[in-house]
């Protein structure tokens, strides 16, 4: 009898211990799944996007013949702008293939070259009119199809290219001549959006994002800090203060798309701010960031020990003086940390910007916050929706840039927090 009991108990204990083990495995499994989802996501983006930081270029000799261009070196800049640079760009390629005669073949041949070649030549004509009549050696981008095909062949991958067999043969000849090479893609960082993947860059979007975040910071930071000071230091526990507090908590959880509706209906339609601009975008994002900053600043103020306030008061400082001279300097690091985290959220926000029209196709870098612009996340959305295949790697590369920005901002926040923690000791 006793034996059976203990046997039963042993079995039960083993089952219970196994259940305990299983429970722990589920926990690890959950963590591993979440972690691998993160790694898969990042790995996927990086492996798609890293190639966009390089671009396929070709070094050709271009004959800047005045007759072909239709302008002389004494022509005005406006006339030089109108010069037939396209013809010169094509000729640069034709001279390497004298056997290509038919106009259809010629057209196919020029498809290897990017429109960027023509633009580079035009820039040269504008900057250095004295070069007209001579011949110059330029390194110009090749078309997106060539770019993708060449990158895939360097990686040794099979690639379903849009290039036909003849074009591939021509490209191979160029490669054998060692004038085709890969170089770091500076265009990607300096240029704005373009219809042509090989010419599209994030320069315009980055500038737009910087303007937007600047406006957001200029509005949200003073307002948020002021509101937090009022709520922590001056408001008595009145109905108003409680209402403000409930409001802030709710605002922090309102979906971002609702802020887009607010921006459209109030900021654009009632206040009449210009559409598609970082100015309007920054204001909308500021309203979204405000709760984050207020909550962070309030908790920073809460950590300032009352003894500091009392010491200030005892020395005859007024409440405002105590707040601004003693409490706020002590609470500043917490506030800054919260502000940076709020800005990092605003940096990735897309939906509200879409709705106030920052999705327009903008081919030049904005010069002021009141110029139409896109932002980095919106640019990612635009490229992701594009049917052109060359944009896929650009999208992933733009995502890598935005992630680098986010990491930098979060590191900055951590740095500020750690530094002040040491200095407070």
């Amino acid at each position, binding site marked *: 009898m006793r034996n059976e009991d203990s046997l039963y108990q042993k079995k039960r204990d083993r089952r219970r*211990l196994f259940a305990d083990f299983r*429970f722990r495995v589920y926990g690890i499994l959950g963590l591993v799944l979440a972690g691998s989802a993160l790694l898969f*996501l990042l790995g996927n983006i990086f492996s798609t996007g890293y190639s966009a930081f390089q671009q396929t270029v070709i070094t050709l000799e271009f004959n800047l013949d005045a007759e072909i261009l239709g302008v002389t070196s004494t022509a005005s800049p406006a006339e030089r702008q109108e010069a037939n640079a396209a013809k010169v760009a094509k000729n640069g390629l034709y001279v390497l293939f004298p056997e290509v005669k038919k106009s259809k073949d010629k057209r196919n041949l020029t498809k290897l070259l990017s429109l960027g070649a023509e633009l580079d030549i035009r820039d040269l004509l504008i900057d250095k009119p004295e070069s007209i009549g001579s011949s110059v050696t330029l390194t110009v981008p090749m078309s997106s199809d060539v770019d993708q095909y060449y990158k895939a062949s360097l990686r040794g991958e099979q690639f379903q290219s849009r290039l036909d067999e003849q074009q591939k043969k021509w490209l191979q000849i160029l490669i054998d001549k060692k004038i085709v090479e890969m170089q770091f893609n500076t265009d990607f960082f300096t240029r704005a959006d373009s219809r042509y993947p090989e010419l599209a860059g994030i320069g315009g979007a980055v500038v737009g994002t910087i303007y937007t975040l600047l406006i957001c910071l200029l509005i949200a930071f003073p307002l948020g800090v002021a509101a937090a000071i009022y709520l922590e230091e001056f408001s008595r526990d009145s109905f108003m203060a409680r209402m403000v507090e409930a409001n802030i908590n709710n605002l922090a959880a*309102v*979906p*971002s798309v609702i802020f*887009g509706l607010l921006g459209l209906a109030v900021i654009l339609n009632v*206040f009449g701010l210009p559409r598609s601009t970082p100015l309007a975008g920054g204001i909308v994002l500021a309203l979204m960031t405000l709760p984050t900053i207020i909550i962070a600043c309030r908790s920073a103020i809460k950590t300032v020990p009352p003894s500091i306030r009392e010491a200030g008061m005892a020395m005859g400082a007024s409440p405002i003086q105590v707040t601004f001279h003693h409490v706020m300097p002590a609470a500043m690091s917490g506030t800054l940390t919260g502000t940076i985290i709020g800005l990092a959220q605003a940096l990735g926000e897309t939906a509200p910007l879409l709705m106030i029209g920052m999705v327009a196709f903008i081919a030049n870098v904005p010069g002021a916050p009141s110029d139409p612009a896109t932002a980095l996340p919106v640019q990612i959305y635009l490229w992701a929706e594009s049917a052109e295949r060359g944009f896929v790697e650009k999208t992933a590369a733009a995502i890598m840039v935005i992630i680098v920005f*986010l990491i930098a901002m*979060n590191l900055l926040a951590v740095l500020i927090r750690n530094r002040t923690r040491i200095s407070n000791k």
Partner: protein
Amino acid sequence: MSSLLTVMIALSLIFLSGFRGWYRAKKEVDLHSRPFYHGVNHGLWVALPMLAVASLWLISESLIIKPSVLSVLTKDNQELLAQPEFRYLEITQMAEGLLDGKVVDAATTKALERYISVKKNTDVTILILFVASGLIGFRGVSRRFNTSTPAREQVERIVKILLAASSGVAVLTTAGIVLALLFETLRFFQQVPFIDFLFGTQWSPQMAIRADQVGSSGAFGALPLFAGTLLIAFIAMIVAVPIGLYSAIYLAEYAKPKLRAFAKPALEILAGIPTVVYGFFAALTVAPMIVDICEAIGLSASSESALAAGLVMGVMIIPFVSSLSEDVISAVPQSLRDGSLAMGATKAETIRKVVLPSALPGIVSALLLAFSRAIGETMIVVMAAGLAANMTANPLESVTTITAQIVTTLVGDQSFDSPKTLSAFALGLTLFCFTLMLNVFALRVVRKYREQYA
């Protein structure tokens, strides 16, 4: 350019006035307040009147310019007023030179001229008022100046009012959201019956813009959108709840402090990644993967399936579940655990029978908050879930959501009197009310729970 100039003028006026106040006080002896406060007082009395006038400039567009322009448009041609908002937008764009080369009729040209002249007049008037108000403020404050002026008290009173006003911005934002949504929604329900919107099963907002245009009449039954939203949110919860909860339990109960210090922020990275990145990932990688897998086992999946959007969204909301749950699990008093362990229960039994039940309210509210995130999430569904308003429970089909419809309706040009545009605001109000209810309920649960163990 002109706005930058205005700001420069304003700043230099404020600075000059402040400097003047500071300098004048500095020469005196036996002051009531320190020169700094006299300077700030002088600056504020210039800045505040100018700020008031500047806010006038903000509303001048809709109060003065727009009615005036629209009156010109309608005087000659009544039918032009069919879409005043759209016409007005067009005129403002023409004035900025955005629509160069567009052929327009005589009435529009007249309205354009009127717009340019009225805008110029109001701008000049307001600029004069702007500078004048600053000068009047300066004159007032410098007249009152003497050594016994309580400048510090005056400044502090104004600063306090400014602080209180700043905290009012949050209230104003909420009020703005509610009013904007309500106003446009009411206009929507003047054209589309309330019952049709809430219980209709047909959603096709494409409407004929002009009466003579061929096109569908539009149907605004939002039920498919609600169903699609819930379907995707449920898929997301199915992913996020087990992963998030088990991670939270492991981190709170089993993990060593070192692992916890590393894993918690690592999980929170998932919440920090921009949603547009998830959208790209869902559309480019996950959706084709699902199509391939389904083909392999003989099912047909849409390339914009609810499953792809839901799965990726689930990954995104894992940290919303795990972070808050971990906090509440850690907050359960150690004495409860000790009691259970002392009775011979294993750790798993303690967690399941003692810790989780007492942390349940907090966990429930974490789940509700995550659910409200999933419902309000926009970019993932815009990019991965498609626009077909299907009423289906099949996760392999394409569905659309409230947020996706709001965005697609409002991207690009829109006229604010067509039911299509207004429907976005009705959807927005629905979404706002729903998430607000979820949040208020969740926060209430959390607060009640916190009091219990405080």
